[in-house]
Every structure is written in structure tokens, then in C-alpha cells.
């Protein structure tokens, strides 16, 4: 088998299977064959990630993680799954039963829908939408509604507080998220994820044209990841969950399988935003250097995704949770100016001739304001007495 065949093996298998399906059923069979692997692989990745996360966090805190169920504790998600399936499904008596039931479904649905436009390998994408990136963000905004539904329908103060925090945070960070993704759209001139990856999968001097390897791409990538962390409610932006303050936030009143669905939705959202970051900045399924292109494309994608997951765990193990005003301050005072500046920077990059001068100018345009901004924000602030508008 040549490298080409290995790279396209799943596409070939699908084509071979489609040959056995009568013409009338081909559209639906094709859809099922495209969607089913995603429905299997990413929940499986979720299961593995929960173990890896607990073990990794444990190691960062000088302890072993779970190591009792199965070899090295790798059957822990099975035990967790069985436990959550067999637990009683409690619906609070005062809860709004219909909305309470619909919220986790909507969350998981929205999280899965986002995978429709992620190119997992060469020719491996469910649909190549013309407005793929826009679709991704539109679906992402449905998550906010699901979170609000969960928090409101539970009729609990903690869950309502969590939902309000989550919605405020997600709306605030959606702007930097979209603005930091816009630089790539500006550079490629398309909203299609497949075309964006194709633009990055070319090599000069053996190095890929990943947008990470440009000044605006690098800054955009970092800003995108910060916003994505906030968007997926991961630590250090996990105020909506905040175990120590509001217990579990918007899903405190959920139990059993619905609770597991919330976890699944959260992790799927994290994978999806990581996948989009890979697609936009890290060349999707392409290899970083041309002599490694013999490695199949889907392996590259999942390798990058694993690195992202590791970084997410690493960040979670390191940083303390932000305060609400710090969170908002970061979004509006640092992220927003930097993303706008980045949009400006990619315009300069586009208009200047190739060469070293372009690099210097674009880096300077980003670094100098970033330093000024961070100095201004770091300045010792005078503490003032707090006033409460609603408490008294």
C-alpha cells in the first residue's frame, strides 16, 4: 500500500461501501457514513481525555491520577459512564420540565453540529460549506442559549448565577474569537474551512505555509486560544462552573445521564474550537515540513488535537480562576484592542511586498502596542471602596 492509499483509506472505504448501496439511498447512506465516524470518534476521544486530564492534573499536583480501574486506570471512563447511566435522573419539582429536558440535548446537538465543517483529513469533511467558518460561529452561539436554558429552567439560584455568568462571558469573548479568526479569512479570502486548509498545505523550502508562522497569525492564534478557552468555559475562565463558588453553575440541578451530557457537550465544544484553531492557524491536516507528508493527514490532525488537549490540561493545572471584573477587563481592554490591531496588521502584511521588511514592520506593529497596553493594564490600580447597586 502506498502512502497515498493509507492517507485516503477512509475515503476509499466509503467509496467502496457506497458502491453497494442502491442509487435511491445514496444521499442518506453517504450522510450516515460521513457522520457516524464523527459520532464515534469524538465521544471516544472525550472518554480518553477525561482519564488523561485527571491523570495529568494529578501529576501536576504531585499525585497519581485514577489508576485503579483497568490497566493504569484507563477503564475509568467506562466506570464513570456506567455510574452516570444507572444513577437516578432527578428533576427538581419547581423546575421547568420541558426546558430542563431540552437544554442538554440542545447543547450536545450544537456541539456535534460544529464538527460538520471541520476537515479531519485530506478529503475528509462532512460538508464543505461555502460559509463554513460562519456556520461554526453560528452554531457556537446556540451553545449560549442551551446554557441559559439549563440555568434558568432549574429554578436554582446557583444555576441561574452560573448561567448568567456563562452567557455574559460567552458573549464578551465571542467578539475577540470572531475577530481573531477574521485575520485568516482576510488572508485567504474564503470562509470555507477546506479552502483555508488547502491554502496552508503548500510548502516553500520545505516549510508549510501555516498562518502560525506569520506575526499576525501567531498573535491571532494566541488570542484565539484565549478566547476559545473562555468560550468553552475551561479553567482559568471557568467562572460559570466555579466549583468553589457556585458549585457547578448551570448544571448543578442535573444528575445522572444529563449531567454526563453536559460534560460531553463541554468537552466536544473544546475539541471543536481546538479543531477550528488547528484548521485556521495550524494548517489543519497538513504536515509542518514537507518531508513528513508521508504521515497520513488524519493522524496529523489528531496529533495536533492531542497537543491542544494537553495544553488545555496544562493550563487548567496551572492558573487560578479569574474574577468576574478581571475576566471582563481582559476581554474588553486587552483582547478587543489586540484583535482589532491584528486585523490592521494583516492588512499591512497583505499590502507590503514580500521580504524581511514586511516581517519587521508587522512584528513591530503588534509588539509595541502590546507592550504599551500591558504596561498600562499592569499599572498599580488604586483600590476604591466597592459600591453595590443591587445588594442593598
Amino acid at each position: 500500500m502506498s502512502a497515498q492509499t493509507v492517507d485516503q483509506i477512509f475515503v476509499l472505504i466509503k467509496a467502496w461501501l457506497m458502491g453497494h448501496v442502491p442509487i435511491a439511498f445514496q444521499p442518506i447512506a453517504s450522510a450516515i457514513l460521513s457522520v457516524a465516524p464523527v459520532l464515534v470518534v469524538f465521544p471516544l476521544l472525550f472518554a480518553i481525555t477525561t482519564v488523561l486530564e485527571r491523570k495529568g492534573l494529578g501529576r501536576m499536583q504531585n499525585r497519581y491520577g485514577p489508576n485503579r480501574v483497568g490497566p493504569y486506570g484507563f477503564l475509568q471512563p467506562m466506570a464513570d459512564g456506567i455510574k452516570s447511566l444507572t444513577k437516578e435522573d432527578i428533576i427538581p419539582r419547581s423546575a421547568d420540565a420541558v426546558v430542563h429536558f431540552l437544554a442538554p440535548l440542545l447543547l450536545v446537538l450544537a456541539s456535534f453540529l460544529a464538527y460538520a465543517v471541520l476537515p479531519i483529513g485530506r478529503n475528509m469533511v462532512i460538508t464543505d460549506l461555502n460559509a463554513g467558518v460562519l456556520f461554526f460561529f453560528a452554531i457556537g452561539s446556540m451553545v449560549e442559549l442551551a446554557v441559559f436554558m439549563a440555568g434558568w429552567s432549574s429554578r436554582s439560584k446557583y444555576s441561574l448565577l452560573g448561567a448568567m455568568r456563562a452567557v455574559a462571558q460567552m458573549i464578551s469573548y465571542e467578539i475577540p474569537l470572531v475577530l481573531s479568526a477574521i485575520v485568516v479569512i482576510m488572508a485567504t479570502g474564503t470562509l470555507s474551512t477546506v479552502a483555508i486548509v488547502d491554502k496552508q498545505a503548500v510548502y516553500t523550502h520545505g516549510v508549510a505555509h501555516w498562518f502560525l508562522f506569520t506575526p499576525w497569525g501567531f498573535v491571532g492564534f494566541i488570542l484565539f486560544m484565549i478566547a476559545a478557552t473562555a468560550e468553552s468555559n475551561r479553567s482559568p475562565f471557568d467562572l460559570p462552573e466555579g466549583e468553589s463558588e457556585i458549585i457547578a453553575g448551570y448544571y448543578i440541578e442535573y444528575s445522572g445521564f444529563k449531567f454526563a451530557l453536559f460534560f460531553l457537550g463541554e468537552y466536544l465544544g473544546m475539541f471543536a474550537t481546538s479543531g477550528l484553531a488547528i484548521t485556521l492557524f495550524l494548517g489543519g491536516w497538513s504536515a509542518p515540513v514537507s518531508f513528513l507528508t508521508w504521515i497520513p493527514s488524519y493522524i496529523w490532525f489528531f496529533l495536533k488535537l492531542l497537543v491542544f488537549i494537553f495544553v488545555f490540561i496544562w493550563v487548567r493545572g496551572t492558573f487560578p480562576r479569574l474574577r468576574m471584573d478581571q475576566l471582563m477587563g481582559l476581554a474588553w481592554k486587552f483582547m478587543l484592542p489586540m484583535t482589532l490591531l491584528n486585523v490592521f496588521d494583516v492588512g499591512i502584511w497583505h499590502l507590503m511586498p514580500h521580504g524581511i521588511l514586511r516581517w519587521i514592520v508587522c512584528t513591530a506593529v503588534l509588539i509595541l502596542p502590546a507592550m504599551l497596553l500591558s504596561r498600562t493594564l499592569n499599572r498599580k490600580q488604586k483600590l476604591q471602596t466597592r459600591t453595590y447597586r443591587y445588594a442593598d
Partner: protein
Amino acid sequence: MTVTFLILAALTIIGASAAMGLRNLIHCVLALTLGFVGLAMLYLELGAQFVGFTQILVYVGAVAILSVFAIMMTRSAGPHAEPALSASWIIGLVVAGATFAVLAWAILSSGITAPATEAPDVSVKQIGDALMHSYAVPLEIMGLLLTAALIGAVIIAMPQEKTP
């Protein structure tokens, strides 16, 4: 009329009428969101991909959430003793019914027929080109309007300085 259209139309009408008819305000907004999603899907069905996704992004992601926030902040989410409909609700219904009758009569009697053509393939690039060339001035005005609306909304919603 295809099955898809019928399903989506039913979804939209159910969402819209529930949004206007339910008692609980949050339920109203959630139903309204359903109606907006139905409309977005109708746009997709009509081949307007960009508009459909923009509809979801703006209405589900922003307007619905904004309305929910407004409801929570005005404390109108709880159960109400007073009636949900205004005193002159009959007039409202009659006017709406009459409007629908007139519109339907106009549509049905106009005799417009459109051949069922292939859906035009509009790429995002074309829309962007149109926005940047023939619609550049409206786009600028829109940007100005949005900025003004942003500032205006902030100023209106800002807490007033308490005068001693």
C-alpha cells in the same frame, strides 16, 4: 411546495405564534428563537447560505440572549397575576387578521408565477465583493448606525448619576 418547506413553515409558525401567545416571558423568547431558527433554515432552503447563518448568529446568539437578559433585569420572568394581553387585544387581533386577509388576497389574486429554477450559487466572495463595491456606501452607513446604536444603548442603559 416540498415536504421540507412544509416542515420548516410549520416550525416557524408554531415558534412565532407560541412566542406571541405564551404567558411565561422566557418561554416566549425561547419559542421566538425556534421561529428564528426556522426562518434561518428557510433561508438555507432558498439557497441563501450566508444570510441563513447570519440569521442564526445574530438572532439566536445576540437578540434572543439580549431579550432574555432584559427580561431577567426587569424581573418580568416570574408568574404574573395581571393578564398577559393588553386591554385592547381584540382590536389588535382584528387588525392582524385583516392584514393577513388583505395580504393573502393580494398574493393569491396577483397571479405571480415563478418558474422553479435551479438555486443560484452564491459564494461568500460574491457577497463580499458586492458589499465592497456596489454597496460600499450603505455598508459605511450601516457601520455608522451600529456604532451610534452601540453608544446610544450604553448611554440609555447607564445608571443615572444620583443627584443629591
